[in-house]
């Protein structure tokens, strides 16, 4: 694979930059509430000072979930993938206007959804389980964000087709390959939420339907909700597989296995959403069990990823003189903030994966469902594995896009370490609280059933939150100071794209064929979801009117 530099046009840089700008502003506002929630758990209630701007813990939690989990991720990902598509194919987008339309739809949707949330008319949390009923603009806005991201995805597909025509027989470059799979996964995954919105929630919120079927809606939601996490994760994997190795002076250990893992993620990420519904009353245990086994199977490509990524890092470190069984780790360029952030993200992600296995374990979930263990888990995955990786990417991408030198790389390194330490303290205590029985989505300070033995853990949640707050503030400072700095970069930012140890052209051709994999993906979805969805739809009961209970 040739990695000779390719220059992205200033116009495209600008377009990508706008995605990042929206993403980072969302993260800034959304993450502000994280520490507030943590402080509440520790007994320090700051919400009274936010009134009347923010009326409750739950309104803040809605902002936290929507802005972090939905907006920060989706905008960063569409922006980053625009970059990896253009840079990977070494050609501009085929229809830039199409992508622009997609982006504008996302922005309009975001504004539309944000208005009712800020007015306390959509305090339904980021899962918006009916029959809790938000203002219609909330549902329409979120739908537009998804539709906009589809349109951007179509723009990528057209670009891929154009590249293919110009390069018949050439292996798809890995970063572009991963980007196209990510977007394909997203298009398939979001069918669930789209059907939910269009056939139930939007007509109901507009008064056109008398009620909804909450169990059916939950099933649609988790059809999308689980693969959503792979939509977050795969862009991080693109960076870990194909960019981070270059940043540590190495190569990609196995191009073929990396591609194989991406295909497995595509096939396996949708047909296992019932693992979020193990304790739902309306889904038969047999289906739950089947999805549990399918969930375990995702463990396999995850382990492949762990191996290839660590092997690539080790290869790089040994090239730089690293020695010893574990000693090579010291030879990694820890002073590079982009590297430090991603390494620490990957490390915590590993523990997040182990916790995920516990959640996934069918009846073990009886102990964990909706306890603090769950947010403890996903702050290691999306809150660190993904978020800290994206932060790490932004440490080279923002200088690349703006042509400015990263402001104070030392501060950026400190930011990554603070996130790491804060998250360990925060997440560890959340996991333990969950095992002790503490519920999630609950201002525990107000709950009447808190035993004294929880107090020291609740205090640690607050401490972790405080450290994370400092880390977040440093990140924003670094980004803002870089963006507004008058100091142009002294040297050109090199885009890190690693070569593979083995020439990808020698990899098997079936890894570059789309039809069999896509057919397998759809077939497995029909098998794993078809009968149950058919049954739920056949017996649909629109018997739940809406409630505004906040």
């Amino acid at each position: 694979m040739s990695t000779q530099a390719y220059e992205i046009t200033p116009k495209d840089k600008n377009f990508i930059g706008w995605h990042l700008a929206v993403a980072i502003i969302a993260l800034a506002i959304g993450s502000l509430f994280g520490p507030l929630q943590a402080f509440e758990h520790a007994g320090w209630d700051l919400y009274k000072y936010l009134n009347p701007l923010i009326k409750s813990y739950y309104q803040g939690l809605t902002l936290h979930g929507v802005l972090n989990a939905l907006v920060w991720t989706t905008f960063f990902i569409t922006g980053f993938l625009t970059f990896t598509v253009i840079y990977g194919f070494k050609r501009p987008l085929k229809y830039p206007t199409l992508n622009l339309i997609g982006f504008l739809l996302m922005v309009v949707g975001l504004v539309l959804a944000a208005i009712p949330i800020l007015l306390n008319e959509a305090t339904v949390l980021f899962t918006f389980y009916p029959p809790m009923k938000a203002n219609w603009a909330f549902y329409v806005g979120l739908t537009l964000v998804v539709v906009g991201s589809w349109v951007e995805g179509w723009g990528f597909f057209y670009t891929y087709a154009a590249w293919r025509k110009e390069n018949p027989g050439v292996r798809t470059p890995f970063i572009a390959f991963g980007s196209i799979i990510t977007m394909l996964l997203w298009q398939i995954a979001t069918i669930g939420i789209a059907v939910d919105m269009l056939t139930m929630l939007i007509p109901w919120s507009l008064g056109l339907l008398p009620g909804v079927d909450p169990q059916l809606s939950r099933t649609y939601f988790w059809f999308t909700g689980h693969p959503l996490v792979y939509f977050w994760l795969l862009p991080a994997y693109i960076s870990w597989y194909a960019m981070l190795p270059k940043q540590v002076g190495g190569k990609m250990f196995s191009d073929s296995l990396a591609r194989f893992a991406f295909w497995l993620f595509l096939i396996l990420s949708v047909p296992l959403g019932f693992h979020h519904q193990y304790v739902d009353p309306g889904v038969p245990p047999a289906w739950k069990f089947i999805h549990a086994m399918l969930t375990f199977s995702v463990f396999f490509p995850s382990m492949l990823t762990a191996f290839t990524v660590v092997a690539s890092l080790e290869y790089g470190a040994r090239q730089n003189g690293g020695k010893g069984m574990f000693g090579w780790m010291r030879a990694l360029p820890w002073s590079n903030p982009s590297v430090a952030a991603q390494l620490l993200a990957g490390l915590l992600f590993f523990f997040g994966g182990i916790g995920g296995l516990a959640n996934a374990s069918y009846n073990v979930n009886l102990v964990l469902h909706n306890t603090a263990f769950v947010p403890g888990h996903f702050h290691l995955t999306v809150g660190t594995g993904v978020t800290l990786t994206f932060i790490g990417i932004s440490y080279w991408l923002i200088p690349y896009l703006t042509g400015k030198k990263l402001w104070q790389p030392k501060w950026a390194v400190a930011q990554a370490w603070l996130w790491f330490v804060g998250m360990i303290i925060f997440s560890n205590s959340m996991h333990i609280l969950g095992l002790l029985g503490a519920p999630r989505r609950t201002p525990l300070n107000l709950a009447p059933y808190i035993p004294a033995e929880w107090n020291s853990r609740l205090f640690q949640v607050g401490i972790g939150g405080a450290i994370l707050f400092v880390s977040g503030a440093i990140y924003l400072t670094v980004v803002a100071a870089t963006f507004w700095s008058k100091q142009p970069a002294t040297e050109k930012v090199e885009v890190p794209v690693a070569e593979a140890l083995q020439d990808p052209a020698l990899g098997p051709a079936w890894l570059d064929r789309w039809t069999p994999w896509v057919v397998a993906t759809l077939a497995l979805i029909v098998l794993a979801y078809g009968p149950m969805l058919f049954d739920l739809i056949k017996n649909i009961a629109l018997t739940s009117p809406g409630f505004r209970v906040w």
Partner: protein
Amino acid sequence: MSAQEKMHVDRYERNWMVASAILLVLFATAVSIAAFGMGIQVPAPEQRVDPRTVASDPNSPWSNPGIREVVAGEKYDVYILAKTWQYLPAEISIPAGASVTFYVTSMDVQHGFKIQDTNVNFQVVPGQVSKLTVKFTKAGTYNFICTEYCGAAHAAMAGKIVVSP
């Protein structure tokens, strides 16, 4: 050309893949034994109800929620109605050693139902009935709490089971 078009797999990587597959089988076995050997099961579809009338219809057990004795001292059914932001009834007394089956439904939004220090923990979805059975071997007070966000006073939604010796 086709001779070269093979997937190159490093020896260590192959071992790693085999080890991962073995681990997977172990996890699946452990869960299956717990589910089918030890009978630790998740909720199954019980019945569907109309949340608009479930609390008022005289034929609905939830119009008169509470405890029903099946076999004195041994077996009880408990019907609990969840609504914003309370459980009806909020307090239940049973003798130690009894096996109790809970039937919980909601007349408004979704709620949760988790009995602390037991394996009873489920989602309460309007229109559906959530059911699990638990045996209380130790006397004491067990809180049951709402684990799903259900509106302004969600944090206060709880009840208790008093198990007498």
